[in-house]
């Protein structure tokens, strides 16, 4: 018998001790428990009696989570009150684009020109085109992939400039929510996001801030 087989209990302890849920999952679970505890309390139980059953760390976490949730709600209401619907959609679209830009997903359709992409990406309900500002040959197409923008099919086109800096251009038909979006500019998560209309398409360009 090998020595480690004689010590099965110890091996089992070691094995299970190495199994753990990710801290993010623990936090998410604690938030759910706090939310459920709050709901249970408001459903009719005595607040004091119910909270006293929870351990102090849970109680503190519940209080902070509630404060954070209320603060977030106040900020959201404030933001909604000071922004127009089209600005909100533009901002949400810009956030989506910033997130996708950071992912740097591989292109599905490598191409050297935008015309090659137009031929390859048959699922698009529009023909992708090179924006006027990039027709100076300073930018080179690397390729593209399908993506969605506010739930609408879009082309995510990767470009590189003469200095080798990469930017991502999104093109979509300005329909539904996007129909309201006009020109706008944002800086989100270190990304400069610019939205504009051109040739009947909505263009969204994502690149490094201060490019």
């Amino acid at each position, binding site marked *: 018998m*090998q020595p480690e087989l004689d010590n099965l209990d110890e*091996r*089992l302890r070691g*094995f299970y001790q190495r*199994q*753990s849920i990710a801290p993010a999952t*623990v936090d998410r679970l604690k938030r759910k*428990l706090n939310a459920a505890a709050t709901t249970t309390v408001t459903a009719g139980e005595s607040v004091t009696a119910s909270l006293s059953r929870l351990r102090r760390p849970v109680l503190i976490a519940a209080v902070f989570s509630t404060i954070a949730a209320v603060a977030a709600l106040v900020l959201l209401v404030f933001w909604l009150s000071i922004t127009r619907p089209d600005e909100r959609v533009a901002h949400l679209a810009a956030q989506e684009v910033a997130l996708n830009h950071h992912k740097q997903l591989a292109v599905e359709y490598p191409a050297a020109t935008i015309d090659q992409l137009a031929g390859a990406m048959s699922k698009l309900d529009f023909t992708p085109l090179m924006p006027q500002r990039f027709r100076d040959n300073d930018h080179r197409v690397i390729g593209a992939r399908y993506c969605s923008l506010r739930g609408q099919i879009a082309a995510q086109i990767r470009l590189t400039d003469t200095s080798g800096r990469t930017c991502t251009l999104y093109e979509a038909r300005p329909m539904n929510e996007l129909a309201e979006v006009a020109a706008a500019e944002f800086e989100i998560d270190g990304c400069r996001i610019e939205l504009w209309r051109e040739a009947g398409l909505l263009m969204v360009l994502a690149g490094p801030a201060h490019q």
Partner: protein
Amino acid sequence: MADMSPNMDELLQRGYRYALSLADDRHDAEELLQEACLSLVRSGGRWHVGSVLTAIRHRFIDRLRRRGLTMQSLDVAAEMIREVAGPAALTSELDAELERALGALRPEERELLYLAAVEEMTIAEIAKMTDRPRGTILSLIHRAKRKVRELLIAARHA
């Protein structure tokens, strides 16, 4: 059980490991833990290791019942659980060997090994928690350990 008032994170991690011993699948174990904790919150139950483990056990048995199984029809249950179990990130080849051996056990065998070896519960405590005679528990643990050893030896010679 020794520690009745661990902090919440530690309590959740212990609950997760116990759920893993029952379900033999990380995703299922997380779900079991979440369902059990939510049921504890909703019922206004007390938070300690015993109540969390018991809640997890009840949820696991509920799941088996929903599939028309019991803790006694465990060979089938083990098969079903293995069907949904995906490959896991393993810390070492030894852990991989042990995980495969544990995966070949029935859920009740894994549970008893876990409670005895990891939670270090006495046979009397396990008997109370699982509602089984002490003799049955001793025999199941003995059989489970023998099975794990045989599987580990077979893995070495494979």
